[in-house]
């Protein structure tokens, strides 16, 4: 499985390196979302401002919206010229395909989160504290997001209304991740990382559960797509 996962992740990242959709479209989209939140709720003056208080939630909402675009792109490349049939015909282990696609998505999202973290600190006037908890929350939340995104990406890829179906399926499933990641970030930025450890555990549990579910379910879902 791991060999196949590496092969698929390498293929997806190579395609991204060529097409630059994540860098050229997904990251700018997320930055625009963060900027629009700033315009709607700003100005950010000091830690007591609405924008500063809401920064963790706004950050994760922007990440969620960007994740939908990244997942759609990840499965759009499989839809061109029968590539999804090619992927099934390849003989790759479906669990390996799932892990590989999720890993490629996750690495792109982690880069996005680094960029967005800087944008939030700058635009929302938040001092970045609790670095370890911030980073741990990003890794655990991203693992959960890409697992759910990859599961529902393949489910919606076979549908005619895939563009609208994916967000409808995806957002309700990741609501717990949004809540836990926001709480964890809130605790970290407030300088009380001890309050966020429990939420980090919740994120880890969701990540493991969704990754396990995807590893098992991806094969049948790919066959039906």
């Amino acid at each position, binding site marked *: 499985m791991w060999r*196949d996962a590496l*092969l698929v992740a390498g*293929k997806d990242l*190579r*395609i991204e390196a*060529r*097409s630059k959709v994540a860098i050229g479209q997904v990251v700018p989209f997320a930055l625009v979302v963060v900027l629009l939140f700033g315009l709607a709720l700003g100005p950010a003056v000091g830690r007591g401002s609405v924008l500063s208080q809401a920064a963790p939630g706004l950050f994760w909402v922007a990440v969620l919206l960007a994740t939908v675009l990244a997942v759609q792109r990840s499965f759009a*490349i499989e839809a*061109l*010229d*029968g*590539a999804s*049939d*090619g992927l*099934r*015909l*390849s*003989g*790759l282990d*479906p669990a390996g395909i799932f892990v590989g696609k999720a890993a490629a998505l996750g690495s792109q999202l982690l880069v996005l989160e680094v960029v967005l973290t800087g944008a939030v600190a700058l635009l929302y006037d938040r001092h970045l504290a609790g670095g370890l908890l911030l980073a741990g929350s990003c890794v655990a939340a991203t693992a959960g997001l890409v697992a759910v995104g990859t599961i529902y990406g393949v489910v919606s890829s076979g549908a005619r209304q895939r563009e609208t179906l994916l967000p409808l399926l995806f957002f309700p499933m990741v609501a717990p991740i949004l809540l836990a990641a926001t709480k964890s970030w809130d605790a970290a930025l407030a300088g009380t990382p001890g309050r966020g450890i429990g939420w980090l555990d919740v994120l880890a549990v969701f990540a493991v559960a969704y990754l396990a579910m995807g590893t098992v379910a991806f*094969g049948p879902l790919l*066959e039906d797509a």
Partner: protein
Amino acid sequence: MVLAVRLREAVSLADRFPLLAGVTLDVAEGEVVHLRGPNGAGKSSLLRLCAGLAAVTSGTAVVLGHDLCVDRQSLRREVGLLGHSSFLYEDLSVERNVVFAVRAARADVAGVDAALDRLGLVGRLRTTLVGNLSAGQRRRAALAVVVARAARLWLLDEPHAGLDAEGRTLVDDLVRDASRRGTTVLLASHELDRAADLADRTVAVVGGRVVVGELPGERRGAATGAAAPAGPAGGVRAADAEGVGCDVA
């Protein structure tokens, strides 16, 4: 004789629409079989079933010893399908596409260079993105995947379509070479003379079934459909030949 393909009343459905309505067909290992029939007859669906892409709803289907009612996944590494689509990634180069497909099938990547050379995909064409290729060049790249994977069963759907004269001759040569190496080939084609010339026999597919009867393209004394080739007396392993059958209620 060892059978590469053994289908008995194989039915395949897409939702409720019948793609195949009970196909019975034997193909011996190393045999080249031409599938002919009108548009929508089920030739492509038959090839997709033999590739493990289309599900068998009822009947029996054993391909290269894999019972498709039990497991379609393990068959896929051993077949090469040239379909209407190229199955290639537009944002990867020709060479990267072929290497990916070969590694996925756990075949030897040492054969990639030879396959690309054989298909005339040399020089800058190798590093050109598939999205920038012409239709004919895409077809050659898709064929390079089939050749480089060293598949035991080639499933070619209109292999001459979109190719120039040189390319069409090249396809003929590839099929003949593959046959000499013992590769089994099923090719669906409307180019009756060309395909019949390549094939050991021709079978007709009509209305999702293989039709038994004399055909203009029939050659070398072989009958069509389930009647040919000779039955399992030549040593088909029982488990391979029978299959469990898959009846979905």
